[in-house]
């Protein structure tokens, strides 16, 4: 009966960030009484909601063996297009559809370049990072598109009781993504293709097709995040979230999803967002300068990932003492 317990070994890739998170929380709760309140917990979740969606998107692409550096500017461009459409046609629904549609289309361009033309994901998405940014500025003249019609921002700003709609919504999407990646043919195939394209081909899968699908799924998720990001401020600035993809990649890595692809459950992306969200919230509560926040988040990311991946290597790197 005790056998499974005895053979249980701690999974430091998940426990590491969670312990760091717990440490943060205890420290913050002791220093800052406003931290451990229900209102602040809701705040953290509300703030983290778009990042969770984007991290899920990044995770799917990373699992398929790629990476997406374009999420921030693709989200900005999709948001600009969507809010322009919503304003022009005076319909929040069309705005939502255009945001999601544009986001999927932009991600599909990445996917086509990567899957069928063999462009490395780094290069294809770094290109998109630049030209989506350029297009967003061109379309807006550098100024935010404002005043979307009534209802456009309801996903980001609405409440059910005293819980913001976006929290259960994001939870639902996360569960859905877990089911897609574990229970569906496409999800399983994305893991196989990311793990080893040759053997995926041998078992009859077409790697390029599933790489493309991974980008399509990511596009839809990034589109949903864009709805929250633009809805939150009720406008679509061309520089919506310039560092979004870096936070998402950091979350994916902190969660312990293998950057080489093919490995790592999708929920790890959510685990990876948690320390980032709590750290940002805590630093804001303490009134710490944004520049210091950047430094702490960057250094924290490196340290957490170094602890996960390098814990075994460090011992080897230290000089060994030899018996005389």
């Amino acid at each position: 009966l005790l056998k499974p317990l005895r053979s249980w070994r701690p999974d430091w890739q998940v426990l590491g960030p969670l312990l760091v998170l717990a440490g943060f929380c205890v420290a913050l709760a002791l220093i800052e009484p406003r931290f451990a309140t229900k209102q602040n917990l809701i705040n953290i979740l509300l703030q983290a909601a778009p990042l969770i969606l984007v991290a899920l998107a990044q995770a799917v692409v990373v699992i398929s063996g790629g990476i997406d550096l374009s999420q921030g500017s693709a989200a900005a461009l999709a948001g600009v297009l969507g809010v322009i459409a919503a304003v022009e046609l005076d319909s929040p629904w069309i705005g939502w559809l255009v945001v999601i549609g544009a986001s999927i289309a932009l991600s599909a361009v990445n996917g086509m370049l990567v899957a069928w033309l063999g462009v490395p994901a780094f290069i294809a998405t770094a290109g998109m990072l630049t030209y989506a940014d350029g297009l967003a500025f061109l379309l807006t003249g550098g100024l935010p598109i404002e005043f979307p019609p009534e209802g456009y921002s309801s996903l980001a700003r609405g409440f059910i009781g005293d819980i913001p709609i976006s929290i259960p919504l994001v939870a639902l999407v996360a569960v859905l993504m877990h089911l897609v990646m574990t229970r569906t043919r496409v999800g399983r195939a994305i893991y196989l293709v990311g793990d080893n394209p040759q053997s995926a081909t041998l078992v009859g899968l077409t790697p390029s097709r599933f790489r493309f699908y991974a980008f399509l799924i990511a596009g839809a998720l990034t589109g949903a995040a864009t709805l929250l990001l633009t809805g939150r401020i009720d406008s679509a600035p061309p520089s919506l979230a310039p560092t979004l993809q870096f936070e998402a990649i950091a979350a994916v890595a902190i969660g312990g999803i293998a950057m080489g692809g093919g490995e790592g459950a999708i929920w790890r992306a959510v685990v990876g967002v948690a320390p980032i969200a709590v750290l940002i919230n805590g630093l804001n509560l303490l009134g710490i300068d944004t520049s210091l926040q950047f430094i702490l988040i960057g250094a924290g990311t490196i340290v957490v990932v170094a602890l996960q991946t390098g814990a075994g290597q460090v011992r080897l790197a230290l000089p060994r003492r030899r018996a005389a």
Partner: protein
Amino acid sequence: MTRSSRVTQQAVALSAALQGSLPSLLLLILLSAACALAAPEFLGASNLVNVLRQASPLFIAAAGQMIVVLVGGIDISTGAVVALASVCGALIAASYGTELGVLAAVGVGALAGITSGWAVSMFRVQPVIATIGMLSVARGFAFLFSDGLPISGLPASFIGLGNGHVLGVPVPVILALIVLAVMAACLR
């Protein structure tokens, strides 16, 4: 026999080099032709020198990126590290003179690179993650040191590194050529 096989080798190397760079070479020729048609002064000597001058910093940064890519890594933090190194170099140059400013800029850049490289090689952090972290750290320090404002009051000799000329050739172009020569010598 040896002679002909050497020629074959050279031909293979040349064609491989061309295969890699042919599309970009074609694109360059097409773009230049389009620019020359749209604005005849594009092909003037002064403008071509200007293009070289503007391209020099990017060339030097790209040379650094290339070394990292050669060993299978990638450096996403280049832009942020350039910002941080500029801020540090300019701040030091404004107070302590050009020489120390240059030293500070190069030193800060090297320090950032060493930190990323250390995380990658000793702790097996993936290059993307290490350099994304560095991007955030460098960006934060750049803002912290500069208060988000451009730094002014630089000594003329420091500005000369970007604006000056030696025998009609812009200083950045000379610096880029030195980097090119060193890279070519070291990577042979």
